[in-house]
């Protein structure tokens, strides 16, 4: 309608601005997730994701090594402990890895900015403590002072923006991660599923149908049964699930597959039937005149013509299954926990 005189109103800029605002508002949450996925737990805990692009200023309380084990005798009753605060703390493995540059430090929580790196703090009675920019420290004192627990240091450090792929590695490839995709997906694909026993699907179907209809025994018209199940399911209540769950011993992936099939069928039938009813009758009649069997009409004419409807339904079905939690929770987790 852009070519009609008068539609190009002075509001065009307002449209652009409001759309831009909407789009920004809508992608903002996802952006947070994206940025967070490249950060370490420590980074996520200490600063907002929007600060990830800038160097992070971090206050930390670190402790020197235990003087009883690590002190070095300097003679004259003097002792010394030397090392790197970050290494002792276990944050990094070696001095080269220290990510941060200490800007100020202190020895009491009230004055965390008392000293700059390289300063020597006098702790009284000849006890001295000094911290360098990269966290290297030197702590000197007499026998009494260098005992018990390590000296605390309150450091304020600036670490450059840092991104990591370790989260993705952990989720996708780490074989040690029991809940990672490496284990979950590959194992199920192999059919090696130690957690759940795979039930006989036919029995499962019977159980499902029995749960709905109150009929026990084999269900002759399996499709009909599942339509009934799905009919109930699509309305959102899950009496079928409740009943099936009570039925007992078929759980695991097959249960989820069956439930999702049941949930999807009624809508699939409804949508596809409506679409197929609208197909031109002449084509079908022509095919019949040309001697096609009903099955040939279905596979060679109806199905190809219904491709748009099939495709859009496939997309929707995928989305629903992908987004579903309740069915998986009910069928993959035992009632006993």
């Amino acid at each position, binding site marked *: *309608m*852009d070519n*009609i*005189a*008068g*539609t190009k*109103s002075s*509001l*065009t800029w307002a*449209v*652009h601005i*409001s*759309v*831009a605002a*909407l*789009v920004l508002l*809508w*992608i*903002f*949450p*996802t952006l*947070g*997730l994206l940025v*967070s996925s490249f950060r370490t737990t420590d980074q*996520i*805990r*200490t*600063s*907002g*994701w*929007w*600060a990830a692009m800038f160097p992070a200023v971090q*206050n930390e309380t670190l402790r020197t090594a235990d003087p009883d084990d690590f002190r070095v005798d300097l003679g004259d009753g003097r002792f010394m402990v030397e090392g790197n605060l970050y290494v002792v703390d276990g944050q990094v493995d070696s001095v080269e890895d220290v990510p941060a540059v200490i800007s100020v430090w202190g020895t009491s929580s009230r004055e965390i900015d008392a000293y700059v790196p390289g300063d020597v703090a006098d702790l009284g009675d000849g006890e001295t403590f000094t911290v360098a920019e990269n966290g290297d420290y030197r702590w000197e004192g007499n026998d009494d002072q260098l005992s018990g627990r390590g000296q605390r240091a309150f450091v304020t450090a600036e670490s450059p923006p840092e991104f990591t792929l370790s989260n993705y590695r952990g989720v996708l490839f780490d074989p040690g991660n029991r809940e990672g995709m490496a284990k979950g997906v590959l194992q199920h694909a192999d059919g090696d599923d130690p957690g759940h026993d795979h039930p006989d699907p036919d029995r499962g179907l019977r159980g499902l149908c029995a749960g709905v209809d109150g009929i026990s025994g084999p269900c002759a018209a399996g499709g009909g049964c599942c339509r009934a199940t799905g009919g*109930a399911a*699509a*309305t*959102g*209540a*899950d*009496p079928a*699930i*409740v*009943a099936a*769950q*009570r039925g007992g011993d078929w759980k695991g992936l097959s249960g989820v597959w069956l439930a999702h099939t049941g949930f999807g069928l009624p809508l699939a039938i*409804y949508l596809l039937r*409506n679409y197929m009813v609208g197909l031109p009758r002449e084509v079908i009649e022509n095919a019949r005149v040309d001697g096609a069997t009903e099955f040939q009409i279905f596979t060679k004419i109806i199905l190809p013509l219904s491709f748009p409807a099939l495709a859009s339904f496939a997309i929707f079905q995928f*989305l629903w299954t*992908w*987004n*579903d*939690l*309740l069915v998986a*929770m*009910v069928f993959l*987790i035992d*009632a006993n*926990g």
Partner: protein
Amino acid sequence: VAFDRAGRGDGVRPLAAQLTDRISWGNIAKSLIFMPMAISFVGAAVIFKLIYDARPEDPAQIGVMNAVYLQLGGDSPITWLTVPFWNNLFLMVVLIWIQTGFAMVILSAAIRGIPEETVEAAIVDGANPFQIFFKIKIPQIAGTIVVVWTTITIVVLKVFDIVFAMTNGQWETQVLANYMYDKLFRANDWGVGSASAMIIMLMVTPILVWNVYNARKEMR
């Protein structure tokens, strides 16, 4: 409680559809707004938990809400999800965020289908853009709006994942589906669990029937 999640934000959806149809980068904008549809409800819950996150007073806030709130002069960070009544709204935001794309795509298709003559006639008669939108376009897509509304209301009545992942029904945010799950698997109370499942079904059925009825009317 389930009912008050229905229908919020419906006003913004036709607007989003209307707006994105009129600009050159509308399709890009549309796919960006549609993107949350591809994120599972649980994923969205995680995303919004990050947004609503509250830290103790001293360290930097990592949740956007609290960071903004403190910037604007709030005294102390608030754990948003534990404030009754308002936490319901915060949970609704998650569903609106997900479902807007769906509503927008369908509604924008409907708006495109409006016969141009009606709009042209209105312009000739001197209608301003707002009048064209509210008096000419909206009435013509009313059927589609109803279909979208009923579809989303059904989703809302069945909502489980968001509540389960974000508050688990605490702080007065319980919904029926989560209640059912709670009774079935935590309390092992099959009777109440089944009853709540039935109630969800009974509540959804009339809307579903209406939805199907309207969808059929649309198709004709």
